[in-house]
């Protein structure tokens, strides 16, 4: 499972880098087309917005993996190792409720509704379900990262003690 998640992370990294490059190129093209060739591009604004949704939502899964999300680490880090481990597992479960309940379940229904109603975007004519599919995809990844974190936490207490020492 852990190796599989590392592979997924690598793929996710590549996708995010390319999306970022694409977003820079898209808006640059918008400026260029307006000032240099005097024919404002009609699709760039919408495309850039959709790419931002993908960076924001899919990147959230990556930031969860790298533990980069902001939190308030006042009490948990000062707990004794065994309690800390329990608290960390509890956090993973709470995150899974959100990622599973809202992002996967609610997100999938949202995608399905948009596909069914054939909601398309104004300039590009893309189905909005396609754009929103970032939500269930990212939710699934976050749930997988949580499960991976939990198994890693359960597997070794020594590792945990090491990190406690490292932080203090």
């Amino acid at each position, binding site marked *: 499972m852990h190796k599989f998640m590392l592979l997924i992370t690598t793929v996710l990294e590549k996708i995010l880098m390319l999306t970022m490059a694409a977003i820079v190129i898209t808006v640059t093209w918008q400026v260029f087309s307006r000032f240099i060739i005097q024919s404002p591009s009609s699709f760039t604004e919408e495309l850039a917005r959709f790419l931002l949704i993908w960076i924001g*939502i899919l990147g959230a899964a990556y930031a969860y993996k790298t533990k980069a999300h*902001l*939190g*308030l680490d*006042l009490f948990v880090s000062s707990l004794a190792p065994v309690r800390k481990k329990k608290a960390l597992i509890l956090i993973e479960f709470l995150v899974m409720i959100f990622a599973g309940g809202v992002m996967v379940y*609610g997100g999938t229904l949202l995608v399905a509704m948009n596909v069914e109603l054939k909601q398309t975007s104004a300039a590009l004519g893309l189905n909005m379900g396609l754009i929103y599919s970032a939500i269930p995809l990212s939710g699934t990844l976050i749930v997988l990262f949580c499960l991976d974190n939990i198994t890693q936490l359960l597997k070794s207490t020594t590792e945990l003690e090491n990190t406690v020492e490292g932080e203090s």
Partner: protein
Amino acid sequence: MDFTAIILLVSFFVLLFLNVPISICIGLATLLSLVMHMDFTPASMTIAQQMAGGIDSFALLAIPFFILSGLIMGQGGIAKRLIECAMALIGSLPGGLALVNVMSCMLFGAISGSAVAATSAIGSFMVPEMKKHGYSAEFGAAVTAAAATTGMLIPPSNILIIYAIASGGVSIAALFIAGYVPGILVGLALMMVCSLYAIHHKYPVTARLPIKVALEKVLAAFPSLLLVFIVIGGIIGGIFTATEAGAVAVLYALALSVGIYKEISVKELPTLFLKACETTAIVMLIIGASSAMSWLLSYTHIPQIISEFFLTLSDNPLVVLLLINLILIVVGAFIDMTPAVLIFTPIFLPVAEQFGMSPIQFGIMIVLNLSIGLVSPPVGSVLFVSCAVAKTSIHKIIKPMIPLYIVMFIVLMLVTYVPAISEALPRLFGFIE
């Protein structure tokens, strides 16, 4: 209805103190409150929809661009040139190195939008330099952290973009230009403290550079500072939007660092792109979740309830505005700036407007207020980065921070009670009638 507010508040703080990521705290608390009003299925769908909808904005696109350009400038030798320029200008005054630190942070803030980027870029060079000349590492770290927050007000500023969206459409250009005077005022106030501190501790004064060398240093920083005119000039002149300016800033920073200064190789770019994605995603998830929360807030009329509560407390604007500031200072000590602006703007802006404050002035006030939180324990992110850069600890840095907190608070009070500080420049440029 009050019951929803209580559930929202209690669940949010319980989750927050459990160290659940703040975006998830907001999302889960919203979910919990929403299932009091409707079934789980429409509740989860609504939140998912609001998350995507909240991010779906062309104005927000400026944020990844300014994050990326900040990362590039932090590594690309631009910070170094800004420091040398500040050194040539004010290095020989009393407390010169501390003043150079403040000015470099302000200059860095003027070309990028991130206080954390400024802290690591400027602090990692200036703190060792200050230590070498007899300053304590703690003082160096304190000055860097406080000075880096001026970048929140001095445009381009990501947080002012976020405020523009949270406030429901204040012009980004107006906010950007409104940030200059308060930002520079904070910088000058910090410089004053630094000079007095240096005179009191009899720190050595650096010799003045020969005029020719000084001129060369200033000229060397010129290409970096030119970015200010392109980006801010472009936005204020209405030539392009903040988002387009952001893209231009990325290209310009790339051209300088990769092409001219040659301090970043093309091979390093993917890592910088990924880092920018990560930071962007953190902000975007908070924005998405907050957008669901503010939908819930307006659905349950919580802002009106709070507004009415404030109006029953006092009808004296001086008292109410002071109260709002004190609440925000406490909030800022625990919650990072982005979620704090997103959560509290819809709640407090209507109250402030009742007392005749303009949305522009309120925006500057809330950002300056929460800047104090960025450099306060227990969570101040800038303070932590600064301590890490200076290799010192949080409890040692508090003592030298105290005079800096005091002057920041004084400027906050000036900004709160003197509208002209925030509004004179936007008025001059025709953003306010």
